[in-house]
């Protein structure tokens, strides 16, 4: 038994490594086209972020919002909804949080920060909820509605930060940059290490992941939500109000994306800026799926993805290639990993690979 587990692990690692190798090989061609040495580039990409405090902290700066978005995505996927509206939900969440942080009367941070989180959760929930409501009650496909709502959210957000919520000073000086005023310093999320951006947001996100785990697997609401996600008919049969739980799933998905928005505002930017969502709405989907749509799986997945982002970014500066190559390499790596995944999860595919190495046999090695 031990031996079998070991060989299975070895197989999993082997197949992943092999597909990564293929991806990096293709990537190497890109580096050569760009006139850079692929070996140096890869060395920087995978090791540089882990070599110093700066890299590690930056990794967690990315991981925090990614994890929050991924939690929401996990909930909605588990309820059978493909939420690609994370970008919009982050923005609306951020703007709700900003309204509270900027315009509410001064109060102690221990009151204000939870209030900001609550507001942004509600904001994101509202935005996700619109798509969820249309899905559940009007039968509007969620891919269509979330894609469209992303654009609407961007325009609303931009309107607010360049209009009613713009920093008054920007008007006075006539520079008119679209950004809000700074949030009072006491409301910022505490930096964990002086001189680095890493803030308590990651801790918050991990705590949320654990809460979501308990929520989904240990409470009756999570039970209902999971039931609706995998088998709507059975859920209805069991007396669950399936439409409401579909809506609720999108409310949670949006809410968590919204939380990511306020974590970025309170932890990183301390004000409302353009493109604050930074693509987390999309990367969050990838993180959630890599995490196996499991809240706890999303924790390592978000950190690894954070590494990928930070490493690629550093590599681009280190070998001076066009920044586009970051995107291309990330895309290749993700493609490689999802492609290899099937050989790990599906026995029949695994068998096919193993048979390649056992020429004469047509037998499946895993039957008992």
């Amino acid at each position: 038994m031990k031996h079998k587990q070991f060989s299975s692990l070895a197989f999993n690692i082997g197949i992943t490594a092999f597909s990564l190798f293929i991806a990096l090989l293709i990537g190497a061609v890109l580096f050569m086209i760009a006139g850079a040495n692929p070996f140096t580039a890869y060395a920087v990409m995978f090791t540089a972020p882990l070599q110093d405090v700066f890299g590690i902290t930056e990794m967690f700066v990315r991981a925090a919002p990614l994890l929050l978005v991924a939690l929401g995505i996990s909930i909605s996927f588990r309820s059978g909804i493909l939420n690609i509206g994370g970008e919009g939900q982050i923005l609306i969440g951020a703007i709700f949080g900003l309204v509270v942080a900027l315009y509410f009367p001064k109060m102690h941070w221990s009151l204000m920060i939870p209030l900001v989180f609550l507001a942004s959760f509600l904001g994101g929930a509202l935005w996700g909820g619109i798509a969820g409501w249309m899905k559940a009650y009007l039968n509007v496909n969620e891919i269509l509605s979330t894609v469209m709502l992303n654009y609407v959210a961007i325009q609303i957000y931009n309107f607010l930060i360049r209009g009613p919520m713009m920093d008054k000073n920007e008007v006075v000086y006539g520079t008119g940059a679209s950004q809000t005023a700074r949030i009072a310093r006491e409301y910022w999320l505490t930096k964990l290490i002086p001189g680095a951006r890493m803030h308590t947001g990651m801790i918050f996100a991990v705590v949320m992941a654990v809460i979501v785990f308990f929520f989904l697997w240990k409470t009756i609401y999570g039970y209902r939500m999971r039931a609706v996600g995998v088998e709507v008919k059975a859920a209805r049969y069991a007396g669950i109000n399936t439409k409401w739980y579909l809506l609720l799933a999108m409310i949670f998905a949006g809410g968590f994306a919204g939380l990511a928005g306020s974590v970025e505002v309170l932890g990183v930017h301390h004000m409302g800026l353009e493109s604050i969502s930074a693509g987390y709405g999309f990367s969050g989907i990838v993180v959630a799926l890599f995490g196996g749509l499991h809240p706890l799986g999303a924790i390592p997945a978000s950190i690894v993805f954070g590494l990928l982002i930070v490493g690629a970014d550093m590599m681009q500066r280190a070998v001076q290639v066009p920044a586009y190559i970051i995107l291309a390499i990330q895309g290749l790596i993700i493609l490689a990993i999802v492609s290899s995944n099937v050989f790990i999860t599906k026995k029949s595919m695994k068998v096919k690979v193993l048979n390649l190495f056992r020429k004469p046999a047509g037998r499946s090695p895993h039957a008992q």
Partner: protein
Amino acid sequence: MSLDIQNLEFRSISKRFPGVLACDNVNLKLRKGEILALLGENGAGKTTLMNILYGLYQPDEGEILINGRQVSIDSPQKAGEMGIGMVHQHFMLVPNLTVKENVALCMYNDSFFELDHKAVNAKIREISERHTIKIDPDSYIWKLSVGEQQRVELIKSLSLGANLLILDEPTAVLTPQETEELINLLKEMAAGGCSIIFISHKLNEVKAVSNLIAVLRDGRLVYHGNTNDHSTDELATLMAGRSISLPVAKEKQPSDEIVLELQNVSAMSDRDTPALNKLNLSIHRGEILGLAGVSGNGQTELAEVINGLREVTEGKILLDNEEISNRSPQKIINKGMGYIPADRLHEGTVSSFSVKENIILKDYANPSFSKATFLLNKTISDYSEELVSKFNIKTPGIETTCASLSGGNIQKVILSREITRNPKVLVAVYPTRGLDLGAAEFVHSKLLEARDNDKAVLLVSEELEELMNLSDRIAVIYEGKILKIIPAKEAEKSELGLLMAGVHNEAQAIQ
């Protein structure tokens, strides 16, 4: 063009799936014009064996010989080329295409552009005339009843020139009349030079139709020989490996108290056609009311309106004199309704949930299983363990997903949940469909037990045998109306069959 199959031989066929040896060294022979009945309980390997012949699976060991020559059938296409056609238990039809298009898909599966609708039409007409199979070639599959879909399956295979037909439990969904027609049709086809392999576990039909019988048990061939050499009882014993007799209801004086009453209930089907048409029905405490009818006449819709899963457009449903029509499913459950749905894999259970989670599917919010929204894991596990042993559910553990259990055991999970909840009314729709005798025996005994415990049971079934054995009264449903209710001891198969086909004396109709 397809091969003329004179004889077919399986030699030492074995097939493994992860964790299961589905076929173990099977040897079979069949000659042209013969009908071979393949018998066995669920999971005995019948379907796997046929999927191998049809090219869906590859055998791990052994070979198939046609006309004495070894052949390799690596795809259904190849099987088709050799003249092998298959009608699957779950129909292999594309629901969003028409009958004609489904047939065309088979005929033109090699071509890219070419699609001659006229030729397809002509082919369908020719076949339906030759075998008197009635079908509208332009209607969409999803609009057809199960029986009609089966006819499409037959036309499909025949249009491809199949001369070896594999039928996987073809009668499971048919009325007695339809079954008889099918049997005649099959015999006729055999006489015309077709070889037929007929998978079933209904012994009477097997006796009626086949020349040869092969019995599989746990993947091994336990008997292969002439049909007439054994009686049905002997065959049943061969299949199960032990002797089985289905329980028969013992007379019981039903109470006069009406528990569930439907008054002029109407409802629409999924296709927006009327499914129930001012239906009236009442069930007494402590009786099993059997509902007979050809599928597609409103049975599932009836079960759904009772359980609040479908909108009642007209009329009233009373449970213990309290109106429950159009209430939420949760409220109806709370009032004491139990339901064993037809689709046990996707409705009766959440298939990717564990056995444990499925056992509490209706009770998770019950104070004994959850406190302040948190599920009480220990209590739930203990309760599940108890039910698993009480209902003899064969599962590796309570954490195993339901999807990995056999049909019979999934049904036991549902049954254990619904009966233990102690409902006033239990609606059971096709509770033994697709189950083997052993499992059916268990289900039957539990339903009778429920009746004896003074529950009102509505048993929906297509198998008259089952209805007549278990029910106190049998109601026949046709086009959304109850045509007649007959006390079970007075019921006769022939009369029920006619009623199911809609033939009845107007004067006798229930008002």
